[in-house]
């Protein structure tokens, strides 16, 4: 066999680079444990929104806008601005030539308003003359279609960048794509499993390609299928070499390799996105132990694809490479055309059976006999359909005469214009819907100066900017004397967190930030016996369920218990879960380790760890118990291992170890038990990450307070409400948690900042920065459960006794706000059932959180539409229906605009990701979303699949964005509204490159409201336009924006 091995490092790197660049349009997919909302077209954000949507359609075969019928419903409902729609039509026509006597504006508006289906059709065989004849009810002129035209039609349909097997599939109906995807998914499930399977794939630590190829060489199932994978794998050991070999075998020209790779990688974009993210997450446990990257993945796809092509070629004489495919089309144009028609579902229905019969025989004469008839009827069908839809349009737009009088040349021009317009109309609708919403929001703003509070409010509450906070803020402000503020849910403190009994670190901050500091959670006191008992029982049940034989016995023995569990969870979820939670011991009280360790403390901790490791080593290696060791012996062994002393040890003398044995033991201490200088340094660095210095603590609190404009007038209570959700049997639970905390609950961040802000030393430093926090102000962390609307206070044991007298009032009012919020939310979840009673609504909300059959425990962030950065005063009289991210901001506190830049660079970017995730999941839930939850199955503990085998489902499930199959989330680009003087805000926008690109490329709509000037600026068509603020501002706008 010819040797194809790549010896050049440069060549390998070239292929690696090509693959990585090719994968860039595919977005990351994070494990579902910490669901990260992101833009599915994130990789295309460098280009304009409209271009990216078109590219997304090409790459992911997905729709970028809602269908026209949905927009027409919105228009009838009044949520589309008709003037803006007309404006978009005029804009489109501005560059078009007039056409005969046709009123093009009226024609296009009629299409938008009255035609549910597209008017223009893709004409492959018919032309404008044929449509003209049909309009005049004339028979079509006979016309012969040259065979070269047919082969050209087929070749243009077979994209030169698409994988070869897709071309073979579309001509021969071979289904190689789906077989290949199935094989690749199975391999991925084996390799990427994170503990779901009981039996693990062997050799995973060698990496994806190496371990897969080792198994594939001996895979009997592949061999039985006739796939000679072993033969291919013998050519080269490296994935790069394999990629080059397969690409050469397929005959793909090297200049299109990158596009070919992109096309190959998008076939299963969920898996590709996961592998992309995983290979970039250096801290990720599973990646460190079982490495994999896109090069491995692509090599596997290509090897299996080639094997399948060869197998089909051998069995069914199908082409096995690009040149063979092209040759087949050129040599058999008629057959190729009919094949393409039939297998790409474009066949004329009435002749489908005849075409199938003829293709089954592959008889040249029969094909030649059928072809003229087929071509004639297809041409007539196209012309008739097009003429018919034009006729309908003509009638609806009163243009019957003009269209009837149009010449074939006019018709050609008209059809071209209609086709281009219908390709772009989605954007026109989107723009008009956004215009309507923007207009309503701006009209509702209260730009008057806020009156200074005469008396101190009872409490100030900081909520996350999340749209779900808006409702509870509104109700809280209504039920009591509360001032509320919006701030990113991580309260500006990016932190790594190691929870109680957890071995790994969780990042509690937006995913775009990497935290420098680490916080540990430590228990105050605990009963380990209770904990151990429950853990052991759960572990046993789990083992029984997952091993090979025990499930048979388990069902017989304790199956009834599971039945009890099932009935409890299904029939009375609230009561049953309350009872069941009593079986688990309460989580012990905990404190957070926030302060930096001194060098001495860190050294002492490391010394102590090393000493206990030596004791363990002595016991394990030499079977010597602790009581036989002296403290000096341990110290000496430690110093010898660390190489700070030399010579034989007292330990060796005492236990009569000869010199080689002693050296061996010391070596093991160094290498196996990691008592060496290098590891000690690593430990020291890790310990160095724990906690914050006092300066950092003061800085974070100061920044958080300044960013929301709270630097004076502090209340007695300042509540910091982190948020999260609770639901049962819901793989998407973390999608409902705090995005600013990396898809985790926000309580820890609230506890951290409260603990810091209550420190006298921190307050003293803040005083020096003119932030005067009175001595009687106490910061309390709270948790806002967005599924139940409950607001629960935490760390109350730290509360000084003098505050306890106010607690009843505080709790009562928080509960009242929760109940009122539940009424509003339950109405949106169940619009057909009245939910007037707050108690009932609150109970139902809690039931939803416990009900394992509930596919929609809450609406989450659906319907999000805007992001307001400014004073709460501007929006506090409006009912924003939980659709707006609210970030408090007072530009007077931020003369240099740095705080605003931080808000734009962090929270706004997260908001935009959330918005785009919802946008695309709503416009095409099958491709950008993850379809119905009802068919989801957990894959490898990190994702979900539809059914038992599918691509990893990215995006949001149908239950999150759709109601009864129609969008509940009205997809719009995030309208960002900044309240600040125009030059101030504009500079901040220009200074944050990411936001500038998003605004200039149309991914965000931006408005800057200058309250003092009474005007606003809107970014449109590449520049800022100034408008006066609407004059009439009603006192209370209960009408939603």
């Amino acid at each position, binding site marked *: 066999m010819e040797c194809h091995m790549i010896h050049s490092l440069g060549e390998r790197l070239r292929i690696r680079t090509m693959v990585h660049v090719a994968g860039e349009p595919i977005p990351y997919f994070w494990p579902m444990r910490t669901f990260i909302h992101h833009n599915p077209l994130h990789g295309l954000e460098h280009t304009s929104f409209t271009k990216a949507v078109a590219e997304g359609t090409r790459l992911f075969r997905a729709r970028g806008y809602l*269908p026209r019928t949905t927009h027409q419903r919105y228009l009838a409902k009044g949520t589309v601005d008709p003037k803006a729609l007309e404006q978009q039509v005029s804009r489109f026509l501005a560059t078009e030539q007039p056409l005969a006597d046709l009123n093009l504006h009226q024609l296009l508006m009629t299409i938008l308003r009255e035609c*549910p*289906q*597209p008017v223009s059709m893709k004409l492959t065989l018919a032309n404008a003359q044929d449509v003209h004849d049909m309009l005049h009810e004339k028979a079509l002129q006979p016309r012969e279609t040259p065979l070269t035209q047919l082969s050209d039609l087929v070749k243009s349909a077979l994209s030169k960048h698409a994988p070869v097997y897709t071309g073979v599939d579309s001509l021969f109906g071979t289904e190689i794509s789906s077989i290949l995807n199935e094989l690749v998914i199975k391999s991925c499930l084996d390799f990427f499993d994170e503990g779901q399977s009981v039996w693990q794939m062997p050799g995973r630590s060698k990496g994806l390609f190496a371990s897969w190829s080792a198994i594939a060489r001996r895979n009997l199932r592949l061999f039985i299928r006739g796939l000679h994978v072993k033969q291919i794998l013998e050519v080269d050991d490296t994935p790069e070499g394999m990629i080059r070999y397969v690409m050469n075998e397929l005959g793909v020209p090297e200049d299109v390799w990158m596009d070919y790779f992109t096309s190959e990688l998008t076939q299963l974009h969920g898996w590709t996105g996961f592998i992309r993210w995983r290979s970039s997450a250096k801290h990720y446990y599973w990646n460190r132990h079982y490495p994999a990257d896109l090069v491995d993945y692509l090599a596997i796809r290509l090897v299996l694809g080639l094997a399948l092509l060869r197998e089909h070629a051998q069995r069914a004489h199908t082409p096995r490479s690009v040149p063979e495919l092209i040759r087949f089309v050129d040599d058999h144009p008629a057959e190729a055309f009919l094949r393409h028609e039939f297998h790409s*579902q474009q*066949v*004329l*229905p*009435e002749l*489908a*059976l005849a075409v*199938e019969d003829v293709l089954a025989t592959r008889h040249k004469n029969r094909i030649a006999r059928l072809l003229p008839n087929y071509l004639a009827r297809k041409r007539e069908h196209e012309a008739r359909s097009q003429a018919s839809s034009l006729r309908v349009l003509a009638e609806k737009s009163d243009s019957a005469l003009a269209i009837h009088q149009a010449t074939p040349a006019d018709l050609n021009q008209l059809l071209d214009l209609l086709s281009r317009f219908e390709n772009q109309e989605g954007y026109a609708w989107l723009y008009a819907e956004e215009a309507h919403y923007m207009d309503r929001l701006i009209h509702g703003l209260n730009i008057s100066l806020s009156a200074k509070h005469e008396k101190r409010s009872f409490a100030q509450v900081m909520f996350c900017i999340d749209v779900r906070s808006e409702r509870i803020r509104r109700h809280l402000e209504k039920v009591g004397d509360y001032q509320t503020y919006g701030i990113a849910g991580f309260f500006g403190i990016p932190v790594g967190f190691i929870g109680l009994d957890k071995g790994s670190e969780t990042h509690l901050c937006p995913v775009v930030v990497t935290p420098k500091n680490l916080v540990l959670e430590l228990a105050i006191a605990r009963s380990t016996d209770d904990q151990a008992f429950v853990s052991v029982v759960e572990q046993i049940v789990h083992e029984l369920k997952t091993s090979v034989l025990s499930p048979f016995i388990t069902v017989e023995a304790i199956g009834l218990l599971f039945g009890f569990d099932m009935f409890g969870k299904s029939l009375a979820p609230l009561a049953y879960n309350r009872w069941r939670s009593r079986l688990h011991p309460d989580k012990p009280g905990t404190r957070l380790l926030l302060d930096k360790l001194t060098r001495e403390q860190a050294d002492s901790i490391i010394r102590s760890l090393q000493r206990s490791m030596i004791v363990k080593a002595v016991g394990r290696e030499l079977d010597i118990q602790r009581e036989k060791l002296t403290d000096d012996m341990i110290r000496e062994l430690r110093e010898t291992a660390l190489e700070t002393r030399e010579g034989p040890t007292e330990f060796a003398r005492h236990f009569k170890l000869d010199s080689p044995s002693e050296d061996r033991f010391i070596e093991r201490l160094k290498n196996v038990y990691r008592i060496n200088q290098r590891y000690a340094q690593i430990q020291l660095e890790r310990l160095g990450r724990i906690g914050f210095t006092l300066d950092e603590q003061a800085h974070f609190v100061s920044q958080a307070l300044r960013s929301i404009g709270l630097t004076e007038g502090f209340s007695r209570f300042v509540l910091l409400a982190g948020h999260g959700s609770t639901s049962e049997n819901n793989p998407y639970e973390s999608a409902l948690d705090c995005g600013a905390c990396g898809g985790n609950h926000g309580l820890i961040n609230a506890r951290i900042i409260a603990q810091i802000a209550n420190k006298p030393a921190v307050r003293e430093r803040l005083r020096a920065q003119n932030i005067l926090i009175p001595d009687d102000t106490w910061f309390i962390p709270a948790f806002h459960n967005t599924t139940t609307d409950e607001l629960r206070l935490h760390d109350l044991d730290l509360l000084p006794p003098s505050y306890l007298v106010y607690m009843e009032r505080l709790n009562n009012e928080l509960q009242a706000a929760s109940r009122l919020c539940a009424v509003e939310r339950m109405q949106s979840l169940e619009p057909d059932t009245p939910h007037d009673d707050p108690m009932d609504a609150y109970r139902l909300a809690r039931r939803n959180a416990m009900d394992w059959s509930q596919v929609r425990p809450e609406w989450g962030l659906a319907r999000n539409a805007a992001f307001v950065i400014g004073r709460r005063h501007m929006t506090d009289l409006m009912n924003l229906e939980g659709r707006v991210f609210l970030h408090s901001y007072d530009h007077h506190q931020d003369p240099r605009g740095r705080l605003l830049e931080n808000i734009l660079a962090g929270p706004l970017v997260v908001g935009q990701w959330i918005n785009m995730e919802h946008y695309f999941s709503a416009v095409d839930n*099958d491709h950008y979303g993850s379809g119905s939850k009802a068919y989801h199955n957990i894959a490898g503990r990190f994702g979900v699949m539809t059914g038992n085998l599918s691509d990893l489902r990215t995006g949001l499930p149908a239950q999150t964005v759709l109601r009864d*199959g129609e969008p509940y989330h009205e997809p719009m680009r995030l309208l960002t509204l900044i309240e600040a003087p125009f030059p101030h805000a504009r500079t901040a926008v220009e200074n944050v490159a990411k936001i500038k690109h998003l605004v200039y490329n149309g991914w965000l709509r931006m408005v800057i409201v200058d309250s003092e000037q009474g005007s606003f600026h809107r970014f449109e068509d590449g520049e800022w336009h100034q408008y006066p603020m609407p004059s009439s501002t009603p006192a209370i706008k209960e009408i939603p924006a």
Partner: protein
Amino acid sequence: MGMLATAGLFLPLFPLSMVFNLLAKKLHHSWVRCSFLLLWPHVGVFLTSAAHVKIPEIVVVWAMLTSSIYALRLLTIRDLGLWSAFLVTSSSALSWILLAHGTDEPTVHLFLVWTTFPAGVLTLLAEPLSRRFGSSYAGLHGGLAASLPRLSLMLVTTTLAAIATPPFPGFFALLGLLRTSAEWPVITLLTLVWIIWSWAAARMIQGFLAGTPANRVFNDMKGAPVLTHAITLGLFAASGLYMTWNAT
């Protein structure tokens, strides 16, 4: 024997069955095709009865093979009209087993009615499909469950009746056939054929019902034909149950 050979044309035995299917394919009018499918096999029963000869064992084997071949062929057929004809071929070939066991003529006629009637109704349903989409070809226009729910329901219930699922009489007729034959090879093969029918039906239904609906809006079936269809299938099921009850 000549009579018997001629009967093989009507109670289709491969390759004589090709004539039956060719004719079924040529008949485009749905009512004519339906009548043809329902009546043609009965001629075979008349002829075998008139021949007064014992059916040789080999004919049973031949009939079973015919039934199996057409059952397998059903898996690849996508045209509803042709699919119905092939199903009738596969099911009516089974009547040879009854004839070989000396079952009386009315019972064999009844067996044919129970097993072929829903397939005949299916050919009628091909007509509204063709009117809307140009043909009744599975896989070309998916998503009918969402766009045409009533027509989909009619299609599903009739297909279920055609492949002899309970409570439709075909189910009891096949159970009776299994009991009559009482030979393991026949029972095994018959069960396999039955399973393949179900598989083929699932593929056929999937080709129409699943997928994304077409952009165009089509009118669903009106109330009267849906009601007529429901009553017809209801009566069919009820009469089957009644006669099975009486027979046992």
